[in-house]
């Protein structure tokens, strides 16, 4: 059922692997690349790639990852348990070998083949456990006779009374006779044949009431429960009441302690024991609480292992710190949770504070989130498109109202002009009053500023369809040898469905090389909503299989925030796309490239 199980170091060296069939492609590589490195937004521990589903687990103190690969259409509920157990067994057995990987004296790769049998045993044990649990959960459905509904019916009520009467009768009669009567009843079919008995009883007719002083001698004796009778010996022997093998133990003080819940052995495994989390020794740190001072000295000497509880408080403080820096609340908690997960199991020296380590890990995590995956060299892309495909490079600027699309478009235009590119500006904002005039003024200024190259505007006035205008603009640019076409769109709220449809149409008809989302650095939690809805609109209103998404982000009004730069983190985290430009003012030269180190420092500065 499993297709592959791999145990490797985080550094990429495969320690042990078992393939049950041929694997198409490299799903583990895809998992590491997409789920673990690139997209930090996986809270689930499941990932799909091609025809396979993957689940994984980490052992952070030894830098090892465990991956299970199986067919996507299967539902294997025990994989999580299997991963946990295999991790425990593997670490317990091979910890020394794993540490030897960085020991310079060992020049040969340690052998991990001995794990083959143990893996089979663990898997068998986990499967059995899972089946047992499933069986106990899904017991056979109750018979109708056992339900309350049956008891409410007439037949049920009658049967119940008869059962009571029968039971009562056997009580009235002394010991041995009761046993005989019971045997007699059972031969007749017992309680299941109660109906026959009931029918027979009914024929007996109504019994007379027994008044005081008129009871027979037999009945009187039967009703006399005082005094010990030898007849109560039945069922009084200890062996029948208590299972000797399940007895607990008596401690030295004479206190009787109940036996532990026993793990049912696998029968023929020859003493194989499935490890559990509670068996794991936690590095001897928690051995006995010790006094306050003594415990502190102990932790100073031997250090401590990080757990989620220990990280809860520093992480809460870090989350608050990030929220104060204008990071969206959801993003802050997701990032903190991911960092906490990656730190579980690490060992901390006595004198080192958890807080310092948390800051270190946060810095690495934030740097990784902000670092772009693809190249942000636009000039190189423009040259490539012009030379290879002989058409202008198109960039579309989208965003909500008032974030600075037209201003930053003109700044980008100025930068391109300085690099000797011929630029055409397409005025596709046909809604806002003065939008086209604003761009005309920009074009006039830029022409005056740049001596040899020229910039032109392509406009068709107000009220027309912006997708058509963009298409005409690109055709015009191709005809007249322009290098770049910048498309200015109208600002629109992310909830406005007709406008989002219009944007999706513009993007699909014209297929710009880069779709740049313009967002202001002042935005807080709104950033999450805006980006998600823009991406979703472009995906769902396109009607095509290959949909476009936002390719890059322009962060504007950066000079208005001091070091509350959280919006940069929120936007990059949601989309996974880089911040291509940063707008730092309102003149043509106020455009910068993103500096990851500086933003990370600003985020972590107290």
């Amino acid at each position: 059922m499993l297709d592959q199980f791999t145990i490797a170091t985080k550094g990429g060296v495969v320690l042990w692997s078992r393939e049950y069939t041929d694997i198409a492609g490299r799903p583990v590589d895809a998992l590491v690349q997409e789920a673990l490195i690139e997209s930090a937004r996986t809270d689930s521990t499941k990932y799909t790639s091609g025809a396979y589903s993957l689940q994984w687990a980490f052992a952070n103190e030894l830098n090892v990852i465990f991956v299970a690969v199986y067919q996507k259409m299967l539902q294997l509920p025990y994989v999580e348990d299997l991963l946990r157990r295999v991790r425990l067994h593997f670490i317990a057995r091979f910890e020394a070998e794993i540490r030897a990987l960085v020991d310079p004296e060992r020049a040969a790769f340690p052998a991990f083949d001995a794990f083959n049998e143990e893996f089979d045993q663990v898997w068998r044990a986990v499967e059995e456990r899972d089946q047992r649990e499933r069986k106990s959960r899904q017991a056979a459905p109750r018979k109708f006779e056992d339900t309350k509904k049956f008891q409410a019916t007439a037949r049920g009520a009658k049967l119940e009374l008869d059962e009571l009467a029968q039971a009562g009768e056997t009580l009235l009669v002394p010991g041995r006779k009761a046993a005989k009567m019971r045997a007699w009843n059972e031969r007749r079919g017992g309680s299941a044949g109660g109906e026959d008995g009931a029918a027979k009883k009914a024929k007996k007719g109504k019994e007379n009431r027994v008044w005081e002083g008129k009871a027979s001698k037999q009945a009187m004796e039967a009703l006399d429960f005082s005094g010990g009778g030898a007849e109560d010996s039945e069922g009084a022997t200890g062996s029948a009441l208590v299972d000797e093998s399940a007895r607990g133990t008596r401690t030295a003080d004479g206190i009787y302690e109940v036996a532990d819940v026993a793990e049912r052995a696998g029968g023929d495994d020859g003493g194989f024991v499935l490890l559990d989390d509670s068996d794991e020794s936690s590095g001897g740190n928690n051995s006995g609480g010790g006094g306050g001072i003594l415990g502190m000295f102990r932790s100073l000497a031997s250090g401590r292992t990080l757990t989620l509880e220990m990280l809860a408080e520093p992480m809460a403080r870090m989350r608050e710190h990030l929220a104060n820096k204008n990071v969206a609340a959801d993003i802050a908690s997701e990032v903190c949770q991911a960092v906490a997960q990656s730190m579980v199991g690490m060992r901390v020296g006595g004198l080192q504070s958890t807080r310092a380590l948390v800051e270190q890990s946060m810095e690495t995590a934030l740097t990784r989130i902000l670092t772009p995956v693809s190249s942000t060299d636009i000039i190189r892309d423009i040259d490539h498109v012009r030379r290879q495909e002989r058409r202008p490079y198109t960039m579309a600027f989208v965003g909500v109202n008032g974030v600075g699309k037209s201003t930053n478009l003109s700044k980008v235009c100025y930068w391109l002009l300085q690099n000797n590119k011929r630029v055409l500006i397409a005025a596709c904002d046909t809604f806002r009053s003065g939008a086209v005039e604003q761009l005309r003024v920009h074009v006039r200024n830029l022409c005056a500023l740049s001596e040899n190259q020229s910039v032109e505007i392509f406009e068709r006035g107000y009220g027309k369809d912006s997708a058509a205008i963009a298409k005409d603009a690109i055709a015009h640019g191709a005809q007249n040898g322009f290098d770049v076409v910048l498309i200015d769109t109208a600002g629109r709220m992310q909830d406005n469905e007709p406008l989002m449809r219009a944007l999706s149409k513009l993007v699909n008809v014209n297929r710009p090389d880069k779709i740049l989302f313009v967002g202001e650095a002042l935005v807080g939690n709104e950033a999450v909503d805006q980006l998600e809805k823009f991406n979703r609109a472009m995906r769902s209103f396109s009607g095509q299989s290959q949909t476009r998404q936002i390719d890059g982000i322009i962060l504007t009004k950066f000079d208005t925030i001091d070091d509350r730069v959280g919006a940069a983190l929120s936007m990059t985290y949601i989309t996974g796309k880089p911040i291509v430009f940063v707008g730092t003012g309102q003149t043509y030269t106020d455009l910068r490239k993103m500096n990851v180190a500086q933003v990370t420092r600003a985020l972590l500065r107290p």
Partner: protein
Amino acid sequence: MGGGGGVLAALASVLVLALAGLAGWFLLQRHSAAIQQTNLGAAAARKSRAVVIAGRMGAGKTALWCHLRFPETSATQAVPRTQTSMAVNASEARVAGARVHLVDVPGHQKYRADRDAQLAAASAVVFVVDSVDAARDVRPAAEALYDVLASGGLQDRECPVLVLCNKQDDSRAASNERVRAALEAEIDTLRASRQQALDSLGAAAHDDADRASDFLGFEGKAFSFEDLATPVQFNEASMALGRSAGGLEMVEQWIADALQ
């Protein structure tokens, strides 16, 4: 006189106690740091000169690291398989008799900061190129090589660089010379476009982020690897073919020479 002696004795005892406390403090610090080092994920302490293996994802860096780190296993061609790295592989090792600190940085773009940090302390750099990919499109490899050459202060320290054209066992692989020529042409274009890039955010002029747009080579002259301050050597290799046929002995020899 007795009082003076008593004060002196008190001072001496206080001094001794203070020294003992300081010594104990330093010992505890060292001990804590040692506990920290037991985390295999933590940056390993470096005792010898560092050799950094860099390159794009899937080029064969971790395979090379395994070959160099485990020479005994590598001789019998039983080197472990590798997958995409998500952490730095760093370990002391013996390469051609010399003791070096071998570092393998993941090729994924997100590990740029780690790579730059490792390069800043490197004494020799091996850049692994996937020759099959380079035959098709050399731009990503050229960008990665540009980043490596320009950052970390390699040019200032004249740190030697070996460009290893890996996967030569594949028939589609481009040869040494072809890869070299393609890289030179692409870096020529890249240095122009990087010069034209915007300034980086923030006032720090010599931030590492800006070093990536440093101009390589001489202006006005087509880029060639000889123009660089660092000695760059090109070699062919194939990790899949094992130790002798794969050219690994040549790599070890180069490392031994470079670290002298």
